[in-house]
């Protein structure tokens, strides 16, 4: 009896493992494919049919062209500016808001909570938001992609949940020592919430890194485009990468490797940090789901 069951179990185990490996291949192959294409010899790539399991030859021309390209470099610089300045603003405002929402004993607590939560269900929509940004003279400046998304209500609620778990006695002790609310926030709440702060930095950071829609709405000058918008222009709209002075015999032939190299170059930062920070990402998801 016991033997029979364990034999059946082993078969099921093997089936699950096979399904899992198959799934893993599906999840990873597209990126690996791009990686292999980016290193392949363009001429061989054109002739090749079928899947790739190893780069065809080895050629770094695509990377040389992409990494020295002014469009890509400006895109990178713009994205980094948005990321760094955006994060400082995001984190400051989110911490302030989340802290104030944990003060459940103040008179306007319910009103403040409602004030924030309502915006998760109602919004003005695309055009009123667009006109607001234009009205504030932010149009065509990098501020247009930083300020309007300064607080994500969802993130603020996650942080509030985390803050709420800090014992109130610690707050009282600061007050007894003559400290104020700012001291509580910066000396107690933030230092005690480092995992949650990591989650905030990651969520906002990945958001900035990957966003293109607002930039597409508000940024007219190509010199202000973040990386994702440059990428969209070339990968999806089919524009050619402006290679400037570089002499390229046949753009069409290089196009596939160039696009693949661009995909890799934009995704590498996330690829590199992701495995190390995975537990924080998942941690955020957990805090988020505990809000009931």
């Amino acid at each position, binding site marked *: 009896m016991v033997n029979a069951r364990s034999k*059946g179990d082993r078969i*099921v185990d093997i089936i699950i*493992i096979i399904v*899992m490996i198959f799934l893993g291949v*599906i*999840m990873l192959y*597209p990126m690996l*494919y791009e990686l292999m294409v980016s290193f392949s010899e363009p001429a061989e790539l054109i002739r090749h049919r*079928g*899947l790739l399991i190893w780069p065809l030859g080895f050629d770094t021309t695509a990377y040389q062209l992409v990494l020295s390209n002014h469009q890509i470099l400006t895109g990178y610089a713009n994205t980094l500016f948005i990321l760094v300045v955006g994060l400082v603003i995001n984190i400051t*405002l989110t911490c*302030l*808001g989340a802290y*104030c929402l944990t*003060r*459940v004993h*103040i*008179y*306007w*607590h*319910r009103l403040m909570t409602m*004030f*924030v939560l309502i*915006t998760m269900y*109602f*919004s*003005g*929509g*695309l*055009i*009123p938001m*667009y*006109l*607001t940004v234009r009205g*504030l003279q932010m149009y065509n400046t990098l501020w247009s992609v930083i*300020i*309007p998304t*300064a*607080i994500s209500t969802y993130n603020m609620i996650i942080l509030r949940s985390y803050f709420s778990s800090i014992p109130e006695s610690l707050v009282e002790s600061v007050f007894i020592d003559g400290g104020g*609310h700012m001291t509580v926030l910066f000396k107690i709440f933030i230092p005690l919430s480092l995992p949650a702060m990591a989650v905030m930095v990651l969520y906002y950071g990945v958001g900035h890194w*990957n966003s*293109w*829609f607002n930039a597409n*709405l508000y940024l007219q000058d190509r010199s202000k485009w973040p990386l*994702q*918008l440059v*990428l*969209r222009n070339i*990968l*999806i709209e089919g524009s050619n990468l402006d290679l400037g002075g570089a002499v390229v015999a046949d753009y069409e032939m290089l196009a596939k490797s160039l*696009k693949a190299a661009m*995909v890799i170059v*934009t*995704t590498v930062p996330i690829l590199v940090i992701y*495995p190390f920070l*995975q537990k924080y*990402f998942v941690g955020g*998801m957990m805090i988020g789901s505990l*809000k*009931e």
Partner: protein
Amino acid sequence: MAKNKKSGATKGKGRKPGAIRLDFQKNKAVYFMFLPVVIFYITFHYYPMSGIILAFKDFKPALGIWGSPFTGDFGFEHFIDFFGSSHAARTITNTILISFYQIIFGFPMPIILAIMLNELHNRKFKKVMQTVTYFPHFISTVVVCGMLTEFCLSDGLFNQIGGFFGAEPVSLLSQPKYFRTIYVASGIWQSMGWDSIIYLAAIAGIDTQLYEAASLDGAGRFRKIWHITLPGIKGTIVILFIMAIGKMMSVGSEKILLLYNPSTYQTADVISTYVYRKGLLDQDYSYSTAVNLFNSVINFVLVFLANALSRKLTETSLF
């Protein structure tokens, strides 16, 4: 959330008239700290909400939002125009169909994945599989759609694979009949791993004694999944399912804008992309706002109903 509401309500009772001023004096610092947050929400959430009035007006840039005149038909002209056009039926149908396929094919995936991950005995392998399946969630929409665009070309990866099975090469993204499949399937690829996290957490919360007791009673693997794991995560499944239904009418525009083109509008154009095209490309601000408002109202009603249903069935709700 519910907890805070309750305590707030009981605290609110029996306050004396001077309480507000006293409270302000005592908690001035908190209100001061909240001020920047209030300014942000007013500027970028509440003020734009007032712009919804545009839906009932004929926007003239020179007159501004408030100065522009109201439309005919008691301000409902844009709504009547929309429902009178062929776009209404097309965008509403596409929105519902895409959501419907997402729910039918996409909703069960993270549940199945979570159960399979839970059945893996090798901890290391499980960890690796989690890392691998969460990964697509972090790839940007532009990169995902860029890869899809390449793969869907008539000499792209998908056609190369199809070639093994004798399929004729076709440019997949220019064929209306393939659009929804591509959209929904790539969506599953992007999110199934990440969405499984919440189910894994629910499974982790199941009492292990239940499994031990079932083993003693001679229950096999599938019986344990059916009688312990699934009932254990039923609450989570129900609430997420209801919420998915509540989002039926809101298909985001970002990914569709990146993937569709005029030749696939027939199956790909949803309300949000129509709002984008009308508003920003044709600069028909009022009409676009009207269509968006119609969509928001429907969304809100759906979310509200879903929430009420969820409260009734599972005693958990979002608000």
